[in-house]
């Protein structure tokens, strides 16, 4: 703390260490903005664009201007998140990052279209786009199993259900020239909605943005693949085969798996009974699907059971709700009665 200066020094949590002056190493008395400038600018621009799109659903000028603004905001956000920060070491740019940028923009733009499209069918189709873009993001994050599960469950099942319901309900209310109902063309209270969305976005995104600052590269990578096995105390079949191919007759010891950059090492008991270490290539580790499956069954069995129960209850509920409930008035009763009697006669 510098005494006598008019500026106040602010204490920071461990998450945000006080900024150091690069030249002297002393404490800098200028506080960085609370919300990252990229989030603020991109969020505000995107919100303005979204508002323009929502305010006058049918107007071309508004829609165009809004789309441009929203895309600009999106670009700022995506660029700021993926590229804006200086990268350490080798290259700050990689192929997965490019894919992720593309997928992210696609996903967000699709989401905007979902909520702004006057026709529910189009909204549902744009939702498929969001799901597919999400799938690409999952892939870049190394969650292959979930990526495909997402496409199968959402695009294959949920969205189809939506389509059916739309067809069931829309046939009566689909009116007039544009083919969209009045309540679909006009948004309700868009200013409040967008404002609430912006507040939520800035809060959530700021927390997340700052959380990444504490990212430790050592914890990521292949460790997550191995962690389930480490916890399991048991080694997958592929790993055992790999050990066999390197050191025939050796028995790997569970719980000794160690993953470091590009390499996997573990303790084994050799055929002659002596103990030693075996180093394996990274590719010999199990794949994401395997690890997720094992984690699901071995580590989180209750959540699996719960998911099953929830699905069962949802099925029952859907059956009960969707059953047609007919209310028959007195006149209709008499008519039915007469009809049945007439049929008999």
């Amino acid at each position: 703390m510098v005494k006598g200066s008019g500026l106040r020094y602010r204490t920071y949590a461990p998450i945000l260490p006080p900024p150091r002056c690069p030249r002297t190493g002393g404490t800098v008395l200028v506080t960085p903005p609370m919300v990252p400038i990229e989030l603020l600018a991109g969020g505000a621009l995107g919100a303005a664009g979204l508002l323009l799109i929502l305010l006058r659903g049918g107007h071309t000028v508004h829609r165009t201007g809004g789309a441009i603004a929203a895309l600009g905001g999106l670009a700022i956000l995506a660029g700021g998140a993926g590229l804006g920060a200086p990268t350490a070491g080798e290259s700050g740019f990689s192929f997965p990052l490019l894919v992720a940028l593309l997928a992210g923009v696609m996903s967000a733009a699709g989401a905007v279209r979902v909520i702004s499209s006057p026709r529910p069918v189009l909204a549902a189709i744009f939702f498929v786009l969001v799901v597919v873009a999400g799938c690409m993001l999952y892939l870049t994050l190394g969650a292959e199993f979930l990526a495909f599960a997402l496409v199968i469950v959402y695009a294959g099942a949920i969205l189809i259900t939506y389509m059916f319901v739309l067809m069931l309900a829309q046939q009566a209310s689909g009116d007039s020239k544009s083919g969209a109902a009045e309540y679909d063309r006009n948004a309700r209270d868009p200013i409040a909605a967008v404002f609430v969305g912006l507040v939520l976005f800035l809060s959530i995104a700021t927390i997340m943005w700052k959380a990444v600052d504490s990212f430790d590269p050592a914890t990521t990578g292949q460790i997550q693949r191995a962690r389930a096995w480490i916890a399991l105390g048991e080694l997958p079949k592929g790993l055992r085969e790999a050990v066999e191919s390197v050191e025939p007759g050796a028995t790997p010891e569970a719980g000794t798996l160690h993953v470091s950059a590009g390499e996997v090492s573990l303790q084994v008991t050799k055929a002659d009974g002596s103990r030693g270490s075996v180093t394996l290539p990274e590719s010999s580790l199990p794949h994401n699907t395997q690890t997720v499956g094992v984690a699901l069954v071995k580590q989180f069995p209750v959540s699996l059971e719960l998911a099953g129960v929830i699905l069962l209850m949802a099925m029952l509920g859907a059956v009960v709700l969707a059953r047609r409930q007919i209310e028959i008035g007195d006149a209709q009763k008499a008519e039915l009665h007469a009809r049945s009697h007439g049929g008999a006669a």
Partner: protein
Amino acid sequence: MTLSPITSMLPGTMLASSDVPAATIAPEFAWLGWALALPAISALACTLMALCKVKGKLPGWLTVASLGTCFVLILKAYQSMPEGPIVVPLAEWMSFSWGPSDFHSLQAALELYIDRLTIFWMLFVSGLGTLIALYATEYMEHDVKAGYARFFAGVSIFLFAMTALVMGGNLLLLYLGWEGVGLASYMLIGYFFTRPSAVAAAKKAFIVNRIGDLGLALGIFLTWRCYGTIEYSELFQIAGNPPRDGPWEEALIPYLLMLGAFGKSAQGPLYVWLPDAMEGPTPVSALIHAATMVTAGVFLIARCYPLFLLQPDALTVVAWIGGLTAFWAATIGMAQYDMKRVWAYSTISQLGYMFLGLGLGTTFGACFHTFTHAFFKACLFLTAGAVMHGFAGQLDIRKLSGLSKIPGFRMVSWFALLGALWLAAFPFSAAFFSKDEILSAGVGSDRADFQFLGWLGLFTAGLTAYYTFRVWFRAFAGPVHFEPGEEVHAHGEFHPHSPRWAMKLSIAIIGIGAVLAGYPAYEAMFLHKENWVQWMMAGSTAVGGAGVVEQAADHAAEASSGHQVLGMSAHAATSVAGSIFGIGGILIALYLHLIRRSAADSLRRAIQATPLIGWIPGAAENKWYVDEIYNAVFCVPLWVTGHVLHFIDKHILDAGVVDGIGSSPSLVGRVFRPLYGGVLQSYAVTMAGGVGLILAWLAYTWLRGGF
């Protein structure tokens, strides 16, 4: 007998404050409690009858019976009374104690303090009460179906309260009776409550009495603070001891008590309610507003005389107020046309004499005058009531003439003449002696101011004689002529209906009583016995405990050593001067109002034509505009203040603050109501917005390094 420097300054009887004999406790006199209970029972019974709408004269006779029994009880007490004062405990009442000393306790038992003063007062209160109630049984008969029972309930309440006032053993009981007679007075003045003037008069009496009662209450509080007791039996023993509070508080006590007395007895600036109180039925005027209740102030000062003796300046104030009120009221009485009003002003005037007597130190004179006045004034009011009863409410002396020549009104007229002579202090009437007793104390005083008051009183006696006989000569003498009043019920020619036996009997007994009231004086004058009234004062608080012999000795000493006035002793001089003034007034009245009535009118016109004094007759007729001045000085500012405060209350406090606070929830609600339109999404907006704000706050706190 010790002569303190203070008391030696006083003319008349020389007193020492500490000489009031100690009271003995006499439970065997508990039967006197019936004097208190009987009127109370009668009041309750009459109230019940009023509620049950009893028709007939039962309430009246019940009241007469209970009051008569009460009078008999008092007579019995008079016969069997011991020498000194006695305290008759009846029941526990107030008893508080919160510490060791006298100043940490308040004792006020339901008990009677009986000394000769008490008996003296109760004799004429209960006696006159009985007679006037008897009179009222006939007088009020036109009201039998409506308010008869209510009237007698009021009379009974009055007698109960008056008994508590006079016989009560402590200042708290006195206060209870004081407020009780005020309440009865209020109820009976406003008896004809459908008449706005009666309602206004009742309110006026009640409100003006508030001022006096406040003084009395404060006086009682201060008495307790200074002496630690309000029981007479203790108070008069320790009065004069150094008080607990400073001299200033002690000196204030008599002034505050005096204020109470002035309110109740219509003295000084507080007299204005009494003339208006004539709106009540005439028996009420006779009983309450002439004979008994208005003398409560005299009784209060006589009872608390030891406290007054400690402050001679207070007695001087009493004398001045009394003397000036006597003169002032007499001047107004000279110009009134309503018979009852004239008697009302004469009551104020005569009460002024009594206070003058108290202030001059001759409590004997004051009480004597109270006694004689009670009879002759009741007699005058009852005859006025008979006239009013007979002529359908007519009391204007310009519209009545020669009543003594109308059959059925002869007796009334002659008793009215008797009352008028007594009021005019005609030589050798009872009032002549009692008034003489007061005035000689002033005229024969060492002090110039008291001498002035004495001569003023003598002059006032002349005025009194004039206005009294103005009424009598106008209304009862001269050619027969009358106009009925407004209360004519029957159609056709008006016939005055003369009073029957009950009214006549009451008037006769009271008239004879007025004559006999002078007997003690005749006895003292011709038989050289002690004056009975003086004997009744002896040993009581009114004379500070001095006995008859001491009083007489003081009298003699004063008579011999006092000033020679006009070459005679003060007594003789006063008698002569008083006779001259009285007879002179009567003669003037005789000339102006009987022999040549036109001379009165021409005299009035002549005065009005004179530049400097031309305003006097009109102003006197309008009571010197006192009511108007009070209205302008007190009522109008209060009225304006009240309306301003009402405006503030209604439009600023009520409309602004209270209603503002009350309507604020609905205003706030109007702000938030659109959020609750029933549409799910509007609730969702609120909820999501709230969640967003909470999240933003959490993020902010977390990033600042909170938690």
